[in-house]
Every structure is written in C-alpha cells, then in structure tokens.
C-alpha cells in the first residue's frame, strides 16, 4: 500500500512552506536585497514544481477516499473553521508578540534583520522557520499584515494535522479515523495552541509528517525525501526539533540510510541544517539551557523530588488538555494485552521523545515550577498528534507492514 495522495499533498504543502522560509533566511544571511531573494525563491519554486510534474507520474494511492469519507473530511474542515475563530487572538498569544512574530518583524526588513540578535531576552537563539514564513510574505505583500500571514501559517498546520491523520487512518478504518479526526478538531487545547501563532504546532506537524512518510520509506525513495524534508523543517522550527530529529534518525536508521537512501536524507535535511548551523555559529547567542549547565546538573539528576514534580505536572497536563489520548491509550493497551498487533518502533520513538522532554525539565536551569507551568503543555502538544497517529496506525497493523516495522 502506498501513501494516500492527500497525505502526500499535505506533507508537500507544509514542507514547501517550510522551505520557502528556510531559503529566505539562508539568503538573508548572504546580505542580498529582498528583490533578489524573492526572485531566487520564485525560480526555486518553479523548478521544484517542474521537477515534481516531470518525475512524479505514479499514482500515489491505491485506495482513494470514498465520497462518504470526503464528506466526513469536509464536515470536519467546516467545523474547524467555525470552532477555531474565537481562539485566534488578533496579535497571537504572549510568545507570539514577544518572540515569534517579533522576530518576523525583523525578518520582514532584510536590511535590519540582524538586530533581532541584540535582544538576549527574546530568545534570538531560537530557529526561525515560523518567523521566516511570516516575514517573507509580509515583506512581499504588506508588512502591516504580518500577523495575518502568521495566523494563516498557524491555521494551516493546525488543520493539516488532523486531516493528515484522517487521510492515513480512515481508508483502513473510517470509525477510528473519524474518531481521531474529530477528537483532535474538537480539542480546545489543540485549537488554542494551534492558532496562538507559536511554533509548537508547526513542530508537531513536521514531526508527524516525518512519521507518516517514513512508513513508506522502503517502498520508494521519494518518501525518504519527504521524511527528510520534514525532519529538516523540524530542525529549523524549534530547538527541541534537534532532539526529535536525532531520535528519529536513531530509530529509523535502516529506513533512512540503507540501500542508498542516505542520499535522499542528506538532500532533504541539507538546506535547513546548513541554515541552522550558519545561524547558530555566526549570529545566535548560545542556548541558555546548554550554556548554563554546571556541576549542579548532577545534583538535579539525582533529586527524586524533581522527577515526582515533573510526573505530576505531566499527568495534570494530560487530564487538563489532552483527555482524548487517554481513550486511545486504553484501547491500544487493551488491544496489546489481547494480542492484537504490536507496538512498532515509531510508537517507541514517540515515547522516548516524551522521556527526552521529561529529562529536559530534570536538568533545566530555570525554576522548575515556573518552567513546567509555562511550557510543559506546549511540549506535550508537539508530541500528541504523533502519539495519536502511531496509536491509531498500530491498532490497524496489517501483516504486510509487520515485516518492515516490527520492533
């Protein structure tokens, strides 16, 4: 079974937006004027479009969605548009105007963008995929409408997440696919974070894209390229993306490296990785979390109270924001106990990512209570769509995929 055409389109659209932003930032660092940058991005987009039409003539899907499933999809999209409206603030949430959109305002001015690194208090060490997108289109169309472009990007990735899960799950089980789709669309926490104009939803989306694409990696190299491009976008979206990408490559080493597939991995991640390395080495201040580690870290690692506190906060966040995952978790555990399918390595990967985030709090140099309060729900938001997807996918495991993904 190959990837659904709709899934491929969604991943491609998201990755394209990510690459426009990444290439824009890379060219900003060269000091080129905006008109030249826009022309290069335009030519690159045309070339990418031509290459796709020329080399991608195969039918993606062997099981196109039925009219009934399209109807469900449409109802969900309308429901999302109606429900998300009250959650979208005019200027975004606190971090939007103090970090992400603030950076975008600098990136909309190629002559002055480097000034954003002068403010140590507004996290200039963060990667710039989300600000880059808003900055590029704001400069291209209207700087006064910067928040609108940021909102459109947030809206898109928030909608793409449940739609992508639906595309992947519904062809095999319309009940499970619809349940995951509507529970995510109707989750207030997901919607709030989704249109807050932060970068967490974008990271959640790109990580999910990587997990979806890697499933088909051994069938065709283009899926390795899609997965690699998604991983590249993860790298350039948030610092946590580096942790996710490292673990992803570690868990999927065979699918990404063997049989010459490493070339596609390199091709996909090269531009975002180059942009990240250049920015971190030449412009960005050191990351506080890493730079401020000291001998105290060992004491933190052996302090049991920290683990307890993080765990209770984790459970509280699940209960307060991600109640839907408990339902899927119980069903999945029951299925495992009954011997219906196994947890594949993508499921284990997501769990290890949760564990890695857990350890970030253990060694944080910030006040733990404050750090948990201000960010744990967002970090969990980054992984919840991936967890939901791998649970659903594992519940529908077919013998065909057992050989590829048996852990």
């Amino acid at each position: 079974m190959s990837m659904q055409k709709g899934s491929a389109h969604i991943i491609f659209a998201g990755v394209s937006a990510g690459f426009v932003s990444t290439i824009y930032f890379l060219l900003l660092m060269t000091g080129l004027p905006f008109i030249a940058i826009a022309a290069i991005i335009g030519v690159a987009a045309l070339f990418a479009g031509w290459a796709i039409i020329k080399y991608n003539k195969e039918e993606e899907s062997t099981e196109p969605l039925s009219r009934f499933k399209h109807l469900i999809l449409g109802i969900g999209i309308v429901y999302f548009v109606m429900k998300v409206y009250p959650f979208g603030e005019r200027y975004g949430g606190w971090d939007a105007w103090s970090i992400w959109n603030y950076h975008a305002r600098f990136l909309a001015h190629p002559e002055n963008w480097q000034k954003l690194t002068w403010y140590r208090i507004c996290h200039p060490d963060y990667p710039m995929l989300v600000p880059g997108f808003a900055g590029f289109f704001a400069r291209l169309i209207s700087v006064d409408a910067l928040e609108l472009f940021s909102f459109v990007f947030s809206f898109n990735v928030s909608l793409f997440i449940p739609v992508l899960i639906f595309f992947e799950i519904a062809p095999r089980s319309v009940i499970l696919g619809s349940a995951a789709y509507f529970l995510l669309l109707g989750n207030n926490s997901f919607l709030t974070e989704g249109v807050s104009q932060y970068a967490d939803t974008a990271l959640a989306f790109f990580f999910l894209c990587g997990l979806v694409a890697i499933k088909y990696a051994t069938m065709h190299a283009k899926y390795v390229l899609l997965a690699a491009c998604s991983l590249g976008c993860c790298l350039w979206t948030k610092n946590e993306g580096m942790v996710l990408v490292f673990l992803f490559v570690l868990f999927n080493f065979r699918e990404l490296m063997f049989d010459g597939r490493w070339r596609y991995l390199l091709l996909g991640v090269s531009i975002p990785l180059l942009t990240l390395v250049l920015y971190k080495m030449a412009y960005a201040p050191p990351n506080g979390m890493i730079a401020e580690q000291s001998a105290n870290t060992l004491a933190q690692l052996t302090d049991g109270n920290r683990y307890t506190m993080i765990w209770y906060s984790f459970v509280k966040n699940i209960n307060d924001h991600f109640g839907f995952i408990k339902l899927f978790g119980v069903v999945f555990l029951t299925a495992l106990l009954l011997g219906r399918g196994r947890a594949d390595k993508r499921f284990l990967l997501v769990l290890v990512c949760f564990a890695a985030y857990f350890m970030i709090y253990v060694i944080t140099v910030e006040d733990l209570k404050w750090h948990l309060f201000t960010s744990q729900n967002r970090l969990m938001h980054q992984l919840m769509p991936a967890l939901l997807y791998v649970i659903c996918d594992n519940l529908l495991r077919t013998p065909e995929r057992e050989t590829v993904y048996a852990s």
Partner: protein
Amino acid sequence: MIVAAVMTAALRYADKPANEPNNVEMHKLSRSLAPVAKLIPESATIGCDLRGVKTEVFLWTRYFLAPRYVPYKPVVLPDTSLMICPVATNDSLLQEYTAGRVILWSGKDSLYHYFLTRK
C-alpha cells in the same frame, strides 16, 4: 476544501476585532505609535522611558517599533526617546518628565500620553 477553509479563516481573522484584554491595549498602542514609526528611521535606536506604566507596554512598544532597536532598561537612554505615562498624569508631572528635552511629537489615547523627545 482546504484552500477555501484557509481563505475563509484569513478573511474572518482580518476583520476580527481585538477584544482580548492584552489585544485591546496592543491595538490602541499600535495606532498611537504609528506616527512614531513614520518619524524614526528603521535603522535607528530609540529609548523607551516608561513612567508609571506596566512592563508589557515596553514589550508592545518594542514590537510595534521593530526593526528599530529599543533597548531594555539601558543605563543611559538614547538621544531620542519615547516617554509613555498614564493618561491621568497631571500637567506639572508631564512638564517635569519632559524638562530639558526637545519634544519632537506628542500624542495621547484613552490609556497613555506619548512624548517623543530628544536631548
């Protein structure tokens, strides 16, 4: 379907009133600071002198004046500075705040007085 959804959401968002508490203030500040943004070049550094105003106002000022550099609590304010104080500040205090400086522009809204001054 997705394109239609995005266009609908974008149009609704563009017309959306700023009615959340922070956003109401930000929207006012955005309109009040528009003349300052026209007067000060994008490459400039400008001070922000808050008098009896919450710190968020600095963050919002910094946001709306970007890419101009607005340093946070500098030891010495830059030559050109924007002074912001509550609209209820009495005249004698306002005079004291701006004493010895040339007023380049002033304005007020329902929340704050704004004085763009230079040494």
